[in-house]
C-alpha cells in the first residue's frame, strides 16, 4: 500500500475516507498519529501539500472540491493521499516511498467513492504506482441498461509525474471487432463514456492498453441521478487462484493481445 486515490468525475463528486487503524489485529503494525499529505502532478513535478494529522483510531473524509480549494486550483486530474511521518519537499521528481509497515490481509485501504445528489457509491481502495512498462487487459461484464449512463474509469499513477499518453482499444470479445481507441494519460483518472458503443446485454466488451496499466472501473449513473454504481473490473489473473496465477494471466494476455488488432484510422 502506498497511496489512497481521490478523483473526480464529470458528473459525480469524488471523496476519500482515510482510516488510521489497521484492518486486522494480527499483522504487526505501529499505531501512531499519521500526517496526511496530498500529492498531485502538474505534468512536470509532483506537487505536495500537508493537510492535517489523523489520530490513532480515527477516520476522516476528504472531498475533491475541498482539496482544490485548499490548493487554489480549478482542476487536478488525480489527487493521491499519503500517510507520512516525515515532511515532503514542495516539488518532487518521483512519487515518494511509504514510511509505515502496512497490513496485507487485506491491504490497508480507504473508502474511495463518488457522490451525486443523495446517492453515494464507493469501494475499498488504494493505488500503488504502476511500472511504466506494463499493459492492461480487462473485460467489462456489467454494463447496465435501461436509463443508465455507463463509463469506464481508468485510473493510473506512475512514479514519474509526466502525463504520458497511451490508447485504450475497445473490442467486441466475441467477434473481436475493433470498436474504438481512446487516448488516456498517466497520473489521471480517465473517464470513457460507453453508451454510444451500443453494447448489448449479451455482449462482452474487452479493453486493452498495450503501453500502460491501471485500475479500470465500471461506473454507472442512473439518468435520474438518484443512484450510482462503482466496481473495478478484474484483471485476467482473477480467473485463477493458487499456483502461478500470474503465468496464467500472462498467457491470457498474450493470446488476446495477438488476436485483437485495431483498424488504423
Amino acid at each position, binding site marked *: 500500500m502506498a497511496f489512497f486515490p481521490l478523483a473526480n468525475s464529470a458528473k459525480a463528486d469524488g471523496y476519500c*475516507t482515510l*482510516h488510521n*487503524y*489497521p*484492518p*486486522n*489485529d*494480527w*499483522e504487526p503494525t505501529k499505531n501512531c498519529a499519521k500526517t496526511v499529505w496530498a500529492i498531485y502532478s502538474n505534468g512536470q513535478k509532483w506537487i505536495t501539500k500537508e493537510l492535517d494529522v489523523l489520530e490513532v483510531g480515527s*477516520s476522516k473524509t476528504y472531498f475533491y472540491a475541498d482539496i482544490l480549494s485548499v490548493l487554489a486550483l480549478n482542476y487536478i486530474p488525480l489527487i493521491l493521499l499519503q500517510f507520512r511521518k516525515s515532511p515532503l519537499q514542495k516539488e518532487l521528481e518521483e512519487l515518494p516511498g511509504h514510511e509505515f509497515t502496512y497490513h496485507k*490481509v*487485506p491491504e*490497508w*485501504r*480507504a*473508502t474511495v467513492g463518488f457522490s451525486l445528489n*443523495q*446517492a*453515494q*457509491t*464507493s*469501494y*475499498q481502495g488504494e493505488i500503488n504506482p504502476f511500472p511504466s512498462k506494463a499493459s492492461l487487459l480487462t*473485460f467489462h*461484464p*456489467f454494463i*447496465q*441498461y435501461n*436509463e*443508465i449512463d455507463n463509463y469506464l474509469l481508468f485510473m493510473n499513477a506512475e512514479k514519474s509525474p509526466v502525463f504520458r499518453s497511451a490508447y485504450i482499444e475497445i473490442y467486441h*470479445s*466475441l467477434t*473481436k471487432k475493433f470498436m474504438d481507441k481512446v487516448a488516456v494519460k498517466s497520473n489521471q483518472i480517465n473517464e470513457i463514456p460507453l453508451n454510444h458503443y451500443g453494447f448489448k446485454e*449479451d*455482449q*462482452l466488451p474487452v479493453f486493452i492498453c498495450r503501453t500502460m496499466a491501471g485500475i479500470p472501473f*465500471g461506473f*454507472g449513473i*442512473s439518468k435520474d441521478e*438518484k*443512484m*450510482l*454504481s*462503482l*466496481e*473495478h473490473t*478484474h484483471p485476467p489473473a*482473477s*480467473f*485463477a*487462484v*493458487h*499456483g*502461478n*496465477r500470474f503465468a*496464467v494471466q500472462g498467457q*491470457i494476455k498474450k*493470446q*488476446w493481445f495477438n*488476436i485483437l488488432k485495431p483498424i488504423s484510422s
Partner: protein
Amino acid sequence: MKNLIKTWIKKNIPTKFIELISIKGISITKIPHEASVISDLFPLRIEEDWNTHFELLDFHRMLNPNEERVSLNVELFFYAASGQFLAKKYIEISSPLKQSLDLKMICSELGVKEDGCFAVFHQNNSSWVDDQNSFLAERGYIGYSNKRMGPIKSYVHGNLDAIALSSMGKLQLLGNTSFFSKKYNLQHILDKNFDYELFFVNPTLKTLAIEVEEKFENSAVVASIDIPPNGISSYKKRHVKKNNYSQIIIKSKLYLCRPLVFKIMPTSFDVFHG
C-alpha cells in the same frame, strides 16, 4: 523447488499450526483437491423487493480466445441461510460470451424462496491452467437490484475462494480458521444517516461464531452471530440520529472475516466489500 515446498506445506499442514511458528505462513484459504474448480459463496437476495443478477461468462473462450465454443455446463448450487443445500441448476454456456442470469427467476423455477447464498462452478477445459498448479475460480460479478430504487444495479465482485468442487463431484469448504480469535476492522465508517446490512458467509466446516462490535464515540454495542457451514447471516444497523458515526469490529476465528456491505440511502443503495 522453494514454491513446491511451500505448496506442499500449505496443502498438508493446517494453517493454524503454521501460524504457531510464523504468521507469514498464514493462508486464509485452503488449496483444494486436485482438478477442482473454485467459487465464492455469493450472497443471494431475492426476498421482498430484492433481486440478484449474475454475469455468467464463458471462461473457456476467455482463457482460450483462439478456440471455438465447446459444449460446457456451469453448475449453480443454492444454499439456505442455514447452510442446507437446496437446489442445483445446470446452465449451458451459450453462444455469446456472457449471459446475465436473473436469479429470482431461476430460484422461482427451483422452488428456492428465501435469501441464502450460491456458488457457481465452471468446467475446467484448459489443462494449461492446471500446469501452473492454479485452479479456475469464479469470483463473480453480482448485481443487486431493488425495484423500489429504480433500474440500476449495484455491482460487486466476489473476493473469497470459499468452496471447491472436485472432478468427482465432491464439495470442499476452503476457509481456514485459527486457534485464536482474530479481529477485522471494517475499513469503512458507518454513516448515522443511513441503514446498513453486513452479510457474512461461513466457508468452514464448523459453525462460525462471530461477534460484531459497533463502536460509537462513547459507547458500543455487540451482537453475536452463529453461522452454520455454507450458511449466511447478517448484522443490521438502523440509522439512529442520536448516535454518531460508528466503526465496525468483527471478531471470529476466521483469518479474514470480511462482510459484504449493503448501504441503504434515502433514494438508492450501494453494495461493496468491506
